Every structure is written in C-alpha cells, then in structure tokens.
C-alpha cells in the first residue's frame, strides 16, 4: 500500500515502527522545536515544572521573540527576557533577537533551519508553514513544546491526507494567497480538521517558494494538522542556498490513500477576499461590496516576504501613485533579512514616500498586539491569515484578508480595490 508524505516522514521519525498508517498513535523524534515570546513563556514554566535540567539538543530549539517584540510593554518585556535568559542558560546555538531575526515562520525557512524530511513542532499554529519545504511541521501548545524541549519527542496521531490539485495558469494579480483562500472557502475552517493537505498540480509547480510558504501557512485556517508542497527544483534551489545540515526529500507514492481529492482550475480565478469574521468567508473580489479602508496591513508570516513587498513596490513604481491620505498603511517586512533587502532595493524609501509606516519586523498588527490595533467599527484590508472577531483589535472592527496587490490597490484608492482600477 502506498504512503502519503505525512505517513512517510512520521514513519522515519517513529520510535517503535518502521511503517505507519493514518490513525496510528506513535511517539516520534523531533528535528526542530520552536516557540515564540507568547508560547515559550509558558513552555519554559512547564519545562521547569517537569524538573528536567537541560534541553534535549541545544542546536535544535528555536525561541523567536516576534509577537509582542519589540516589547510593547513591561509585561511583554518580562516574557521576552524569559526567552533570552533561557536561551543563554541552556546555551542554545541559535539565538534570535529583535533587530537580528523577525517573524518565526519567515526566519526559520529563510535560514535553512527547517528542511525537507524534518519533523518540526512549534508553539505557534502557523508552524504548518514549513510544509512548503517538505517538512512535517505542526503547531502545538506550550506544554507539548516543553515536553519536546525536554525529551526531543512528541506523540502524534498519523493524519489522514487530503489531496489538492491545481491546474491552469493564474492571471495577473492572482497568487498563492488566492489559491489557498479559495481552497479554505471551499472546504471551510474545519474542512481539513486533523488532516494533512498535499498540494500538487501544474499551477503549484509554477509557484515560487514565497507563494508556497503563503499557502502552507494557512493550512491551519482549514483546521489542518500539516501539509506539503511537492519537492522539486524550486525546493531544491531554495534549500540548497540555505541548508545548515543534510536533509532527505520524501515523495508521496502514486497509490497513496487520500480521503478526498479536490481539483481547482485557476486560469479564470479572480483575486479572493476573506470577509469578516472567518478565513472561510471567501468571495471573488468582484462579489465583495467595496468598503472604505481605515487601515491596510501588508506583512505577517503569510505575506511579509521579499516577493510580497516586490508586488507593492512594483505597483507604486508603475503607477506613480501614493497611498490614500485617510488610510493608515503599515508595511512590515517579515524578517530583518527581508527588511535589509527591501532597504537595498530602495523600497523602504519608496513605501515611506508613498505614505506608509514601515516598521521593524514583528507579528504585532496581525494578532492585535501592537503597531496597528483597530478601533471599533474600523475596517482593515490585511495580507495576514486570520480575521476572527477581535483578532486585530476591537471586537467590532472588521478585517478583510487579501493578497498584497489587492492590499496595495486598497491602500491607494482608500477602499477595498483591485489593481486594475488604478
């Protein structure tokens, strides 16, 4: 019987099994354990309560301050200090600090710290992002992360797998973000609950790594446990330039068992928008009533990469337009490396001259933490991944999720808008 990618990678990491199938409960070894300033604060408390003195492997624990960092207040400063001191006390090899790192899910792939065939657990729901480079990666809570930091192990139920096949060639202004929004809109926020999502097809093969990372980032928005992009030349080129150690690519068998297969023809697809208050409330942009935008946020682990900022820069340069004076525009590179690349490309000046607040890398606005919290009844067009009630601020604020081109056009025109309107 053929195996899915989740079955193959879990089997390769399983303690007492050479082969596993969907539904099996197994104990597995972890390659990388990650947490951020919100989740590591509790993980370190749990780790200490477990009474284990040292982490299982000081090279493979990544504690990334990204959510309230740069620290928004004294309480978050205390939390971040907990991470810093723990990393120092445990002599963790990889240290992450404001000004040198950025958002966890941008930084880890960018530095080649998560690799094909890895088994990664992270104290953040968007840890599923690393499926784009072929890692089994999944989000967990803090106590699970503490257990993994202590033992290098975790327990998993081997997920069933859903297959998603995309054919055709997307039109201009349609990106990986639109493919994943459309997918979530179709299957719903619990459509992939407990399952793995394998993305395949000619349209996927043509996607750059940045857009693949955007798609796997939002697996959790369909309830998914993990997911995978095919390992191909795009993956190899991306990983070879960064890998800090050797890795093993895995491939799904042709006769693997899938619970369902979903096919999408993307050639006629419009840019997609997720309306309040759910990432599955998705409509083609032409069917969404345009609303004035009080804020536009371009960034996050979903769309804060260099290629995302390139879309913004390209539209500004080609149109010569500035952002609308009534819109607060926040542009936040996903990592310091992205920030530096944008700086060298001249985009930080471009964005600033156009009227944007360009900030140091942080998760802040995406989770209503800081640097872009919304007031009641305000509307935000955001490139991030969640628009739950209260997500980005007041419970009555409303967030529309869209790709960076839609966000840029909306920031220029002052309401939800398509770049063709410019």
């Amino acid at each position, binding site marked *: 019987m053929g195996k899915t990618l989740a079955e193959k990678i879990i089997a390769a990491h399983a303690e007492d099994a050479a082969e596993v199938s969907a539904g099996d409960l197994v104990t597995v070894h972890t390659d990388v354990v990650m947490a951020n300033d919100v989740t590591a*604060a509790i993980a370190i408390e749990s780790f200490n309560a477990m009474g284990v003195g040292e982490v299982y492997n000081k090279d493979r624990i990544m504690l990334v301050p990204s959510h309230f960092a740069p620290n928004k207040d004294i309480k978050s400063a205390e939390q971040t200090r907990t991470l810093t001191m723990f990393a120092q006390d445990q002599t963790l090899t990889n240290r992450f600090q404001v000004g040198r790192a950025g958002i966890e899910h941008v930084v880890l792939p960018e530095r080649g710290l998560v690799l094909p065939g890895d088994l990664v657990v992270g104290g953040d729901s968007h840890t599923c992002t690393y499926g784009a480079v072929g890692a089994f990666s999944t989000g967990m809570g803090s106590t699970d992360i503490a257990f993994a930091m202590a033992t290098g192990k975790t327990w998993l139920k081997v997920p069933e797998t859903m297959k998603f096949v995309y054919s055709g060639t997307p039109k201009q202004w349609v990106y990986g973000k639109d493919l994943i929004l459309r997918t979530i809109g179709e299957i719903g926020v619990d459509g992939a609950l407990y399952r793995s999502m394998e993305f395949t097809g000619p349209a996927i093969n043509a996607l750059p790594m940045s857009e693949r990372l955007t798609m796997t980032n939002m697996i959790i928005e369909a309830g998914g446990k993990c997911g995978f992009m095919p390992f191909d030349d795009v993956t190899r080129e991306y990983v070879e330039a960064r890998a800090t150690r050797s890795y093993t690519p895995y491939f799904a068998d042709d006769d693997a068992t899938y619970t369902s297969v979903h096919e999408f023809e993307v050639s006629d697809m419009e840019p997609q928008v997720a309306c309040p208050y759910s990432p599955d409330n998705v409509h083609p942009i032409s069917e969404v009533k345009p609303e004035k935008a009080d804020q536009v946020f371009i960034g996050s682990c979903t769309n804060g990469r260099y290629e995302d900022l390139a879309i913004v820069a390209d539209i500004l340069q080609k149109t010569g337009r500035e952002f609308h004076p009534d819109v607060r525009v926040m542009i936040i590179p996903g990592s310091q490396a992205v920030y530096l690349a944008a700086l060298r490309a001249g985009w930080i000046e471009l964005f600033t001259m156009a009227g944007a607040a360009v900030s140091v890398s942080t998760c802040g606005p995406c989770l209503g933490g800081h640097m872009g919290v919304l007031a009641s009844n305000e509307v935000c067009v955001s490139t991030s991944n969640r628009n739950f009630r209260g997500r980005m601020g007041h419970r009555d604020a409303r967030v529309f999720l869209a790709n960076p081109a839609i966000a840029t056009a909306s920031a220029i025109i002052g309401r939800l808008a398509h770049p063709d309107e410019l």
Partner: protein
Amino acid sequence: MDFKFDGTVWKYGDNVDTDVIIPARYLNTTDAATLAQHCMEDIDQVFAQQVSPGDIIVGGRNFGCGSSREHAPISIKGAGVSCIIAESFARIFFRNAINIGLPILECPEAALAAQKGDRLSVDLIAGKITNHRTGETYQASPYNGMVLKIIEVGGLVPYTRNVLGINITN
C-alpha cells in the same frame, strides 16, 4: 484529578476560536487568574463575571480553532470551568486542554441537545454525559492510550515527571 462533574451549561456555537476565548491583548501574561478575568470576552461579555465553579462549556464544531495559545484552555480552567463538551475540537486546543488537565469530551449528540442553563453530569473516564433536563444519557468516545494516561495523572507535566522518573513535590 476528579473524573466526575456536575455543572451548569454555557452554550456556544460552531468554530469558537482562541481569539474570542482569550484575545491576544492579554497574552502578555501567563497568570491563570488574570487570563480568567477576560475569558470569552469577545464572544460573551458576561461569562467571566457570572461563571460559577464547576460550570460546563458546551460548544459546536471545531471548538478552539485558531491559535496554539495554551492561554485559551488556561483561561477557561482558571475561570473554574470543570469540563468542555463539543461536537468536535480543533486539534491543538484538544491537546492543550488534555495537557493542562482541563477535561474535554467530544460528543455531538450531547452538545447539540444541551441548552444554556441545563444541568449536566459527566463521567470523564466512562465518557458518559447525562442531561438532567431531558433525562438523556449520551456516550462520548472514551479516552485511550497516552491521552488516558495523561488525564489520569492530571496533565503532561506530571506525566513527564513520571516517565522520566523525576520526583518533585509541589
């Protein structure tokens, strides 16, 4: 841990997400009592003031979807809730609740039938839920394997100490 509960129902719908259970603006603390004061704040503004020790939350499908923040079940446990029953749970929330010793049960029939203010009796290990208004008893999937072991010892921290043979008294 006690494995049998009696409590009054707080009823919610499908896809109750972790942002409404505990909004991100409160994630700059790990203190359970502080988190409890803001539990369910963006979906039910009276819950934190009116919840009584032992009360039971009943949700629909995909309860706890969204973030990995363990603060969500911590705030619910801190508010004194004895148990959560739902049609289904989001995966990370399910693990988090078990790991911190907050009992949860998946039982679509019981969740659909329960109304706000109902009195329920729950036998966690047997997976039995009785609704005193309707007189009906429902069977949830009982726990097994490692999940049952974690529940029996009261969470993943004591479980880990047991596995690793670490003795700490506190």
